[in-house]
């Protein structure tokens, strides 16, 4: 069950939309922020808020890369592997992240802190290699800088 305040806020968001389902992405994002990922329960809650069937919500949830339908760590790392970052050796950064975190792409660290995912162009092509950690963008990555960022993001929680 979601808290009454969140429920009220989501109902208001849906009411302000021209058609209810237009608010689907916002509702999924908020529920994800609450649960940590979009749980089965969250899918059903989203469906009832939006006047859709759970299957219709599932159809949307599985489409968007920033909606997680499986458990993830406290912070998700999206590391860009598109062409501009490739030009400046994102492969080296990805290898470093895998080694440092002890996970393969798609994996979550043993302490449940980070999930590592590759992602498509983040629009930071002038500042590659780039990644985002828990939604915060970081650019001009070096292995040393990656270590610093991970340490800092670990402390921030």
């Amino acid at each position, binding site marked *: 069950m979601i808290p009454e305040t969140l429920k009220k806020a989501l109902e208001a968001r849906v009411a302000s939309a*021209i*058609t*209810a*389902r*237009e*608010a*689907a*992405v*916002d509702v*999924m*994002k908020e529920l994800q922020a609450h649960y940590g990922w979009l749980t089965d329960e969250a899918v059903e809650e989203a469906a009832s808020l*939006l006047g859709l069937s759970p299957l219709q919500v599932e*159809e*949307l949830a599985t*489409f*968007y*890369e*920033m*909606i997680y339908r499986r458990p993830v760590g406290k912070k998700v790392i999206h590391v860009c*592997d*598109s*062409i*501009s970052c*490739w*030009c*400046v050796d994102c492969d080296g950064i990805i290898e470093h992240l895998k080694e440092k975190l002890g996970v393969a792409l798609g994996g979550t660290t043993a302490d449940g802190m980070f999930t590592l995912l590759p*992602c*498509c*162009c*983040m*629009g*930071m*092509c*002038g*500042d*590659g290699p780039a990644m*985002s950690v828990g*939604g915060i*963008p970081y650019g001009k990555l070096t292995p040393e800088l990656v270590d610093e960022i991970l340490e800092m993001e670990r402390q921030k929680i």
Partner: protein
Amino acid sequence: MTLPLFRHNRANRVVTFDEYREEGGFEGLKKAFTGMSPAEVQQTVIDSGLRGRGGAGFPTGRKWSFVPRDLPGPRWLICNCDEMEPGTYKDRVLLEHNPYSLIEGMTLACYALGVRHAFIFIRKGYEKAAANLAHGIEEAKKAGLLGEKILGTEHSIDLDLHLSAGRYICGEETALINALEGRRPNPRQKPPFPAVKGLWQGPTVVNNVETLANIPAIIANGSAWFKGLALNPEGAGSKLFCVSGSVKNRACVELPIGTTLEAVLDACGGMREGRKFKACIPGGASTQFLKPEHMKLPMDYDTVAKAGSRLGSGGVIVFDESHCLVEATLNLITFFARESCGWCTPCREGLPFVREILTRIENGRGEEDDIAILREHVKYLNYTFCALAPGAMAPLDGLLRDFEDEVREHIVKKRCPLK
């Protein structure tokens, strides 16, 4: 000559509402709402020669003119800020420095098109741009430049933000419309085109951020002024070039349309120390390679097209002699294969197959027949619902056209010659 898009920019911060107004901001809006008919605004945009800056380069005024004037019911304007074409980051840079040109441009476009309610579709990761826009919209409303009865006239216009959650295909205009409606963002079959049946089945125009941000200066200064900004007679206006790869200073720069490729690279400090230019992709991932012989090529839609590529989004990705272009193309195809929405078969099945073949070649397991198989796919992957797969085939087509020797060398030597 002052170019329209970056003229209000401050170093490392967003321009304020007052600064924007002091520098002539919202003058175009005032001029239109107090002295021009909607048809005159549209005609000015047609005359200006402005072409869509999102990638396709379609004439903006003509796109507007496809909206039937006499259909009852609401019509819609959507700004496409789903900037996910690899190598493209111009809209982010623009909006992080100045949200007002877009807000004013959209208000003018709504006026010209008779739109009451418009949306800005913003990709995930552009939260800073979204925050600037949200703030800018509030300020414009307070000043009577947006919202109810703009400047005391009978015209009311609302702008809303839609924050998305990732996926390249959402930038395809019919997929974007589905996404905005809260449906799974597969592209829709055309026709009917969005100008006739788009958002909630109403007439809809979808324009890129940079396109719309040009409108205020066009209205304020006139179409002849805008045309005159270009360095070549066929061109019009300026272009944001966002450069990445092997240049010294990777940056987003505003230059007149028709600036040579060499001058675009020079604006970014030229090549990185010790690197030699091998090729570049001039307009984002779905365009073909340009080579050293194209250095003096004026960067304009028609001239770049004649040279066998596309100006596209202006996302210039620069490769040097140390880059293997088979691997670069493999990277591009991997992107497109991952981002295929899966709706139609040639794209869903064809792209992973092309990726497999390129992987094989790059790893030294390619066979002579592979080149012919790849060429067939360049042809077949045009038979798709939307432009994703044909776009993916552009760099592959370019690779086979311009760098066939490099591909063949991989196959003959049974390894990547650059590793």
